[in-house]
């Protein structure tokens, strides 16, 4: 029963990672770049929900929709201002820019909203569910986070595989030049990808903070890095891979906290990542791509 309790809180943490990793993997899969500012978009989403829902008492759903709108706009702006001019630059330059954007967001948040911690009120107001005669109680946040992650994953898979825009995204991902020749608006598709990724970041922010309620300007940084690891773990670019990677990472982290050492949990998580990458360099569900030289 204890094990089950740890497992459930691991899955809860993991599904938040999964939600963030979905945003990472979408952008990487299509724009072929690592958007390190993703974690900080989550933080901005968190503040938006905090100011509308926690401070002004908006309807939680409305607050999350508002945060999604703000983050979507922010994502498109970041892409337009910081990444598009570097479309043909070496990937290292884009990577450094992304790190720069990340710092810019964190420090702007510190100036705008001060760095003293804010305690986030959970957007989910249901009671925890107790099973097995009260021995095990599952917070409602956990269930909602898992459900939301699964639903979003399914929608994304459907969207990419079944819709015209989704096909265009896949085309851009496979061969940008050829896609452009086929009449696909490559810049538009990449903007759309950032919009979707950032919108998801707002949902992730709201759910992350509902479970782990301390909101500071660096709130998104560590979960962002962990989610990036999760995306690599599951095979970066793969949507189900990001989900699987996220959940596994959360479970491994929590079980190693519970049974091995609370202090070494991060070390163990990254050790597992290294082992997986040594054995299967493309990640758990990653595609092997042959590159013509």
């Amino acid at each position, binding site marked *: 029963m204890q094990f089950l309790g740890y497992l459930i*809180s691991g899955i809860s943490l993991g599904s938040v990672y999964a939600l963030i990793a979905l945003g990472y993997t979408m952008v990487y899969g299509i724009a072929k770049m690592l958007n390190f500012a993703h974690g900080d978009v989550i933080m901005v989403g968190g503040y938006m929900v905090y100011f509308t829902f926690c401070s002004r008492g908006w309807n939680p759903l409305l607050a999350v929709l508002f945060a999604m709108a703000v983050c979507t706009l922010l994502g498109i702006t970041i892409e337009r201002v910081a990444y598009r001019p570097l479309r043909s630059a070496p990937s290292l330059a884009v990577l450094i820019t992304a790190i720069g954007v990340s710092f810019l967001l964190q420090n702007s948040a510190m100036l705008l909203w001060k760095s003293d911690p804010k*305690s986030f009120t959970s957007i989910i107001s249901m009671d925890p569910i107790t099973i097995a005669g009260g021995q095990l109680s599952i917070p409602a946040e956990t269930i909602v986070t898992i459900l939301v992650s699964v639903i979003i994953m399914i929608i994304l898979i459907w969207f990419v595989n079944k819709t015209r825009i989704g096909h265009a995204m896949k085309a851009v991902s496979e061969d940008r030049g050829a896609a452009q020749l086929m009449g696909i608006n490559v810049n538009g598709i990449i903007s759309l990808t950032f919009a979707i990724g950032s919108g998801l970041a707002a949902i992730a922010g709201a759910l992350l903070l509902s479970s782990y309620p301390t909101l500071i300007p660096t709130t998104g940084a560590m979960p962002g890095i962990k989610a990036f690891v999760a995306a690599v773990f599951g095979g970066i670019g793969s949507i189900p891979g990001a989900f699987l990677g996220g959940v596994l990472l959360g479970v491994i982290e929590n079980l190693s906290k519970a049974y091995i050492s*609370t202090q070494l949990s991060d070390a163990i998580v990254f050790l597992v990542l290294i082992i997986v990458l040594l054995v299967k360099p493309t990640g758990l569900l990653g595609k092997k791509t042959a590159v013509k030289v």
Partner: protein
Amino acid sequence: MKKLITAAVTGVLAASFVMSACAAETIKIGGIGPITGAAAIYGNNVKNGMEIAVEDVNATNPDLQFELQFEDDEHDPEKSVNAYNTLKDWGMQLLGGTVTTSPCLAVGAEALNDNMLLLTPSASSQDVIDLGDNVFQVCFTDPNQGSASADYISEQKLGEKIGVIYNSADAYSSGIYSTFIAEAEAVGLEVVAEEAFTDDNSTDLTTQVQSCQNAGADLIFLPIYYTPASQVLIAADKMGYEPKFFGCDGLDGLLTVEGFDTSLAEGVMLLTPFVADADDEKTKDFVAKYAEKTGGDVPNQFAADGYDVVQVLYAACEEAGVTSDMDASEVCEAVKAVLTGGEFSYDGLTGEGMTWDASGAVSKAPRGMIIENGEYVGLD
């Protein structure tokens, strides 16, 4: 032309010399602490407390005046050393800081090199006073907090099975933790769970709370700062787990976390040397001045610590006959001689009859407090 300038400069210098000779002695006091960041409440309280104290002491004796400059360090050792250098450039003669432990260790090493007297309001680690004989504390040393907590819990029979959640990456937290564990064993308290976290994985503390619950702890000892403590309280509430919570001075500030549901903090107990609702004249007077200065805020023990730092330094400077033309090292030797002379005793907000020995640790008695109806109330 050149001669004229020289003459003018000499004239001005001479004039200013005469002026300073007939004006009062002004001693420059530096303060360092987190005004922003995760520990901002401590720094702001200390800063306000010090400013009030400076106004008070300057009013008592026109011949010896204090001038205070306070720098922000965001609870970051590196920034703290920068702040220290800024203050040195300004001409600081005495340092009342720093507020938090890890930065104080970094700054203390610099202060030792410069032989600058350092009286910290609240950096409570043993390591701080071990740095050198120029470092003194107004607050209790962590070992005392840890062992005093264990004694208190056992004397008042607050819990049968104790769980501890502490930050192993923080000198303050792990310092209290280790002495608590040692004393708990000595007085026969049963510690059933010892759970650690680090700054990097402090996002999620549910597992640590779960482990305490699984171990059957009926009291959780929290030798941590208020931000992670608020997470522990929220996590326990979500699980429907209701142990008693007991902490040290780091918990002071819990009620002011923005957005935190303070009803979760009901019944939380802490050991701290200052209670704002105490009814002695000195406390009442300070609380009133603090409210006036901040627009209605209630000071916590850090504000009182800050106030006492300035008062103690002032009393010591007065007794040692410190003058404004002495450099930091001379001031340090003079004040140190007074503090450790054996005659010096100070009745402050945070304790009656505070005395110091050469180790730099203060001697005074701790008090227990409990949070009731959103207020700190003395336990005894």
